[in-house]
Structures are given as structure tokens and as C-alpha cells.
């Protein structure tokens, strides 16, 4: 059992707080991704779990041990660094076996475990090389291999893919996912890339300014963002957010946008807002599509005619930029036909997929 538990975890540099008392429990064998913009404290949190940063308050436990004051070597963790941190003066084989050698394992065990790890990651033909003779993806795999030979309780990944090009990043993402399925260990993974977070995580922890904004499965944080920050951070393109005021029209709660468009609010939100309240309505690009080019469903839609200012063809879909509520919004055209800038289209806005946030606090009224 290697559950990782953070309780009221605080990190301060002098008087500057970096992590402000976060609570998080990571279950055994769970793949948790800490995600957030730079400076949000995610890497610091990871480094505190690793023991590479002292903690200023709170507790960290791994399994049933409080590890607050243990040095990294006593925590039975392994870590993959952003720059791989392979030992340049050792061969791949020596790199992989280093931790076992330090732990004074016998030669036969080292040999066996290194061979195992090399096999899992396809490194067997590269064992005699030095890191300098490897490509980026290969170095990345060696770094992962070095992590798995130890059979640690917890794997820590610190933005491991951010030094790779886009294509390789995609491949390595798949490899990391497969690795987790094979070795079944608790993983804490830090990234600033929400796509990585969405594709890899069992649960995503979204952080901002040293606080946790939301914890949930990828589907939860995507479908039910707790606030406008999560709504815009998760999902690509980010959620469209428009300022509006609530009112009651024809017995229904509606949101009045700045340009006079009114949108009927979903029933779930209706009784949580009062008339005249300043709110932010949000919807994702895929909920706003030209008639005939959207997701089909029988949910209620609002038909809105708009001029496309810029089409952005992406192959299987085209992003359409237009204006709504006085702001630029993005719609999505599935199975697209060519669209010219300036073309008039009727968009269907799926009202069941509207998100409603309180404008002042930014918090969702739905979650």
C-alpha cells in the first residue's frame, strides 16, 4: 500500500508563500496529475513529496509513514526529471543499475532487474551507450527505466515531456500510460499541459497560486468545472466566457448578454441565481456549432445568426471565430465544409451545456 497523503501542506520561501496549506490524498496505484500555470506550486509540491524541498508546515505521508523529515533516499520513491538528469559519465546500463548498486544489491539481482526494466522500455539494444549518444525520446525512456528498476512505492514525474517535440511527446504520453498499466504504481505527475493531464490522469489536481482549485477525474473537471479558472484552463480551445445578467422572462430564468441576446439557463442553474445577478455564462466550442455541423442530440438549442470573422480548419473540424455578447467566441464545425471569413451562419448553442458562474466569485453555481 502506498497511499500519498498531503495534509495542510505549506511551503514558504522567507515570507513568500508558495503552497498555502493543500490537502490531497492520492490512492494506491492511482495516477494523479498536478496541473496548473507556471508558478502555481505544482513542482514545489512534487519536490516536497520527493524530499528535495523542506516543508514549512503540514504533513506528508507515504503509506503509513510520515516522511516530513526523511531524506529523499529513505522515502522509497523515484523521480523522472524534466531534463532527465541522466548521469552523463555512465552507460545506460550503469544509469539503470545505479540505485540498486547504492542499495548494495548483489550483481545478479542488479543484472536481472536492469534487464527487466530495459525489456519493458525497449532499451535492451542501448544498454552500452552513454546518455550523450541517445536521442531525446531514448533519454526519456532511460529516465523512466531508472525510476522503475527500484520498484518504488511512488513514481514522481516532473514535467517529463516538456523537452520533447510535439510528435515525440504524443508517443511518450502513450508509453507512460502503458507503463502505468504494466507496473501499477502510484504516480504523481506534474505538467502545465492540460492535454497531458486529461489523457494520462485517473484524477487531475488543478492548482493556481498555491491553492488547489479542483480535484476530479478528467471528465469531471472538463464537464463540471468548479470555477472560471478551471473552465478556461482545461479544454482546448478554452471555454467561452461571457458576462451576463439574469432575469426572468416568460417564467424562465434567462441570461441577458451585453449585446441583447438572451439565453435560457439550464434548469439546474435556474433556482440558484436571482434576478439581476451578475453572472458569467460559459460554453465550450463544441456546444456552439453551425446548424447541421454539430453534435446531434435532442437538447434545447438557441439559434443565433453570426458572421464568421475567422475560420481555423483543423482537418476533422474547423474552429469558427465570431462575436457574441460583445466578445470573441469560438464555435466548432464538425465534418466541416470550407468556410470563408465574413460568411453568415446560423449557430446552434446547446443550452443544456451552458455553465453558469457567479461573476464576483467566479464559482460555478452548478457544482
Amino acid at each position: 500500500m502506498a497511499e500519498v497523503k498531503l495534509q495542510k501542506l505549506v511551503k514558504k520561501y522567507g515570507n513568500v508563500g508558495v503552497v498555502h496549506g493543500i490537502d490531497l490524498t492520492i490512492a494506491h496505484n492511482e495516477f494523479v496529475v498536478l496541473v496548473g500555470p507556471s508558478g502555481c506550486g505544482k513542482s514545489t509540491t512534487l519536490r516536497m513529496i520527493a524530499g528535495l524541498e523542506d516543508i514549512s508546515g503540514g504533513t506528508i505521508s507515504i503509506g503509513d509513514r510520515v516522511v516530513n523529515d526523511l531524506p529523499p533516499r529513505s522515502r522509497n520513491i523515484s523521480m523522472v526529471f524534466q531534463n532527465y538528469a541522466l548521469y552523463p559519465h555512465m552507460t545506460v546500463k550503469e544509469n539503470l543499475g545505479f540505485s540498486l548498486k547504492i542499495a548494495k544489491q548483489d550483481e545478479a539481482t542488479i543484472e536481472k532487474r536492469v534487464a527487466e526494466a530495459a525489456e519493458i522500455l525497449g532499451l535492451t539494444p542501448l544498454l552500452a551507450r552513454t546518455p550523450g549518444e541517445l536521442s531525446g525520446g531514448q533519454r526519456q525512456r532511460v529516465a523512466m527505466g531508472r525510476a522503475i528498476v527500484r520498484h518504488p512505492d511512488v513514481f514522481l514525474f516532473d514535467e517529463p515531456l516538456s523537452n520533447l517535440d510535439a510528435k515525440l511527446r504524443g508517443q511518450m504520453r502513450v508509453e507512460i500510460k502503458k507503463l502505468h498499466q504494466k507496473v501499477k504504481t502510484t504516480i504523481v505527475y506534474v505538467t502545465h499541459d492540460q492535454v497531458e493531464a486529461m489523457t494520462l490522469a485517473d484524477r487531475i489536481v488543478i492548482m493556481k497560486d498555491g491553492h488547489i482549485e479542483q480535484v476530479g477525474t478528467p471528465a469531471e473537471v472538463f464537464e463540471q468545472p468548479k470555477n472560471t479558472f478551471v473552465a478556461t484552463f482545461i479544454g482546448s480551445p478554452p471555454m467561452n466566457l461571457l458576462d451576463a445578467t439574469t432575469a426572468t422572462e416568460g417564467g424562465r430564468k434567462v441570461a441577458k448578454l451585453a449585446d441583447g441576446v438572451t439565453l435560457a439557463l439550464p434548469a439546474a442553474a435556474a433556482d440558484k441565481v436571482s434576478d439581476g445577478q451578475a453572472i458569467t455564462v460559459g460554453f465550450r466550442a463544441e456546444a456552439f456549432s453551425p446548424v447541421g455541423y454539430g453534435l446531434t442530440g435532442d437538447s434545447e438549442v438557441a439559434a443565433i445568426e453570426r458572421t464568421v470573422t475567422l475560420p481555423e480548419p483543423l482537418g476533422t473540424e474547423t474552429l469558427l471565430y465570431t462575436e457574441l455578447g460583445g466578445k470573441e467566441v469560438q464555435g466548432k464545425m464538425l465534418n466541416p465544409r470550407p468556410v470563408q471569413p465574413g460568411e453568415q451562419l446560423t449557430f446552434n448553442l446547446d443550452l443544456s451545456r451552458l455553465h453558469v458562474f457567479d461573476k464576483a466569485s467566479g464559482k460555478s453555481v452548478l457544482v
Partner: protein
Amino acid sequence: MERSWQRWLIRFGIFVVMTIICLPGLWIVMTAFRDNVEVMARPPVWIPERWTLDNFRAILGMSENQQGIPVVRYFVNSLIISVTSTILALLIGMMGGYAFARYRFKGKNVAFLWLMLSRTVPGISLSLPVFMIWSRVGLIDTDFGVILVYLALNIPFTIWLIDGFFRQIPLSLSEAAQVDGCTRWQAFWKIEFPLAKSGIASAGIFAFLTSWNEFALASQLTRTTASKTLPVGLMDFTAQFTVDWTGMCAMAVIIIVPALLLTFIVQKHLIAGLTFGGVKG
């Protein structure tokens, strides 16, 4: 066409510069192997007509017509002083350089600045106060006294150089080693030290050459064969009315050869450096 014309100009320039640099050295070596008659000849004899080892025999006291000079004694003194001060400077430089490169502590920048400022003071300008203090505490004409001065001379430089090399080694390597089960000390010896080896070697050779070749301070602080070093020993060849050029040059060759050998041996480290492939460059 123009490019080959330029190339020849550059080559000629290099030839002139190298001639200016090398000729005195070459002259010393040639003088060491020729007769005194040839040295004094006018017009000068450029290429020695007869090569001889007599000068070496003479200064080593192996010939009958001249009293020897305690070259071996000087050599041993030089070796003791240079090697000891180099090893100590390296040890302290490694610790200091590592501390400056890796740790955050109060007054770090000021301390570093002072170390560097100490390099701006010409050592010889301190020779008088050093002489007075040394004479009071009885360090004049001892190996230890000279070693101490050379340490002061070398430590700022070794710290500065080694600090630079440790800075080049990403911190994450030491962190990875610690996660892999090393103590901080093990991480240093197994990971950071091997990677900084070339830097430490170059710091070592610089410290050694400084100590080996230093003349001004040693000439103040040494008196007898108890501590006189080779460069100071060169003065033994000047008498009131004569200078024994051949003997002096023979001794100069004895000074140059070990330094040259050492430089060749360590050269590989100086140039090679390690390819930092372990982290993304």
C-alpha cells in the same frame, strides 16, 4: 583567390607572434646545451655548433672545475612546496567552489567578491607585511611559510574556477542521485565530482604552475637551502661581476621540463571536458 591571399597573411601573422613567444624559450634551451664561449660570441652563434651536457654536469656538481649548486635540494623544496600547496588549494577550492555553486547562505556574494578582489592586489605588494609577520612568527625560510603564501595566492582562483565547473553540472543530477538512494556526500563523490574532474584538473595545473614558477615572494621569504625553490635558485648564478648564463639556462630547463610534462599529461582533461549528454543541452 582573395581568400588564399588572406589565409597566407594570417599564417604569416601567426608565425611572427609565435616567433616572438617561442624564441626566448628556444634560446634558453639552446643555451643550456652549448659552451659558454658560444654564448658570449659576437656576432651571436644562432645554431649551436657543439651540443654538450657539461652545463648540467656542472650545476649538479659532477664536474671538477666548478662548485655545484644544490639543484637537487631546490628541486625537492620546489616539489614539496608546489605539490602540497596545490593539493591543499584543490581541497579547499573544491569545498569552497561547491559551497558557492550549490548552497545559499548569508553574505555569499560579498564573500565571493572579496575572494575575487584579493586577486586584484599584486602579491608582491603584500610581500613586506608578509615578511614582517612571517619573521615574527618564525616562518621565514620554512617550506610551510611559502606554502601558506601560495595557498593564499591560489585559493581564490581555484574556488572561482571550480565553482564555475560545479555550476555547469545541473542540480538535478545530484537530486536524482539522492532520490536514487545516495546521501548528499555520496551524490557528490559518485556524480558531481567525476563530472567536475576536468575542471578540478585544470584548477590543479594552474595552482601548480603558479607555485612552481613563482619567484618574487619566494625570493623574499626564503634564505637558505632549507626552503629555497628552483626559481629563487636561479639567482645563485649571478655573482657580483658575472652571470653564469649557461648554468642558469640549464637550471631553467630543469624548471621547465616537469611543468611541461605535467601540462601534457593533464592536457587531455583540460581540453576534453565531458559531454553533458545526461541532460538536455
